[in-house]
């Protein structure tokens, strides 16, 4: 922030404000990305402060609070999910601002702590950790940047690898990252249970070739399972994995694997 750059457009508490904050315009499409990009109110505040090269130890509360509130407003008017922490911070900023506006006798001012002290402490501590995170991320990471060597061991009897659910999670995480499978963000538990029942139905049809529709349902297992089974049947039919036939109205409905004769 050089003095020669421009004439101040305003003075706020004696400090020249050289330019109007220009960084508040966020393209609408990018808003949600922005929301994701910030790790929380501290992160947003740091961004607003650093963006203007403000001295973190001498934060001008008024413009900062205004920018912060504008940002929060944008998020609210767009009905973005706004973490409660953002509102707590807004309240804290306004409180600090109002305390700074109150006139205080010089004597009191000297011994009273600057109302910004706590905020500054948190910002500095957070920024320090943020940088530490970057540096950790920059270290060569096993499995990402460097890979351990473990050549195949010739041995008589193979021990079987153990797999835990955490390993599946890890594998899926790798897949997600690599393929950026946006379509698969939406997979839910429910969908998984449908797919699980698809497998079950196929398995039963392999044993029995043909089953009557009703035989595939087990009312004893509750309504949820009935519904999921029905959804599984519909999905199987949609994917042409099974044939559902009925010779005439009210006749029994039969379910079989699609074109079993071909095999």
């Amino acid at each position, binding site marked *: 922030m050089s003095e020669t750059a421009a004439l101040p457009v305003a003075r706020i508490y004696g400090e020249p404000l050289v330019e109007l904050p220009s960084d508040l*315009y*966020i*393209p609408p499409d*990018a808003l949600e*990305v*922005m929301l994701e*990009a*910030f790790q929380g109110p501290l992160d947003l505040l740091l*961004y607003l402060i650093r963006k203007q090269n403000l001295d973190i130890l001498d934060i001008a509360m008024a413009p900062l609070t205004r920018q912060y509130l504008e940002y929060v407003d944008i998020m609210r008017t767009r009905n973005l999910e706004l973490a409660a922490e953002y509102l707590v911070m807004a309240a804290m900023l306004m409180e600090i601002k109002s305390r700074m506006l109150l006139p205080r006798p010089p004597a009191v001012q000297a011994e009273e702590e600057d109302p910004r002290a706590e905020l500054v402490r948190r910002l500095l501590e957070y920024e320090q950790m943020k940088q530490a995170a*970057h540096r950790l991320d*920059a270290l060569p990471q096993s499995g990402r940047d460097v*890979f351990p*060597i473990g*050549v*195949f*061991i*010739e*041995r008589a009897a*193979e*021990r079987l*690898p153990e*797999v*835990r*659910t955490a*390993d*599946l*999670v*890890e*594998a*899926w*995480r*790798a*897949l*997600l*990252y690599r*393929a*950026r*499978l*946006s379509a*698969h*963000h939406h*997979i*839910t*538990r429910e969908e*998984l*249970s449908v*797919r*699980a029942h*698809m*497998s079950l139905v*196929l*398995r039963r049809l*392999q044993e029995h070739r043909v089953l009557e529709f009703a035989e595939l349902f087990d009312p004893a297992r509750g309504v949820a399972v009935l519904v999921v089974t029905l959804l599984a049947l519909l999905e199987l039919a949609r994917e*042409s*994995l099974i044939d559902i036939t009925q010779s005439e109205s009210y006749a029994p409905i039969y379910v079989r*694997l*699609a*074109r079993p004769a*071909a*095999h």
Partner: protein
Amino acid sequence: MSDLPVLQPTDAKRILEGALLAAQEPVTLADLRRLFDEDLGADTLRRLLEELREEWSERSVELVSLASGWRFQTRREFLPFMERLRHERPPRYSRAVMETLAIIAYRQPVTRGDIEDLRGVSVSASIIQTLEARGWIDVVGHRETPGRPALYATTKAFLDDLGLRSLEELPPLEEIAKTVTLEPATEPQALPQAESAAAPQSPDSAPGES
């Protein structure tokens, strides 16, 4: 590169060595050729591999050629030494096997083609065989598309071995998604920045050449 001076064509052998040492499974000649920018003739490649095998002939680990490709493995004579260390690590499935298993578990029933679509790479027959032999997956049908590809699903043995009562007990996918950054790798300073967020760079810009 600090230690590996710019890799000369003569370093091709060191590249092959590194790739083979780091691979968990045998590597095919076709895969090995993809390591190099300019085409390394099949003859050259085979000659380099033979030279490498020769270099390793006096050591505890040897380079062998198998039906499915080349790999390093410990020499049989070395097994007694390995056994002294044995209590060590349990064997692990390769990443390819684990990802295939995860896809079958979460997306069943799926064909090999489905798995390849999700992984973005081909799935070798040996991966499927590994999981079938373990009794964790089996064929539950065929999709009525050309070729009638087999549909794979996980078995009860899979649930048992993982200590699950049903597939619903698998960790939900949305939770997993939250821990993954979907942004391309960013420079330390790049985020948060309205500009870059609005116009993300091509996510596939490779870090090296390629």
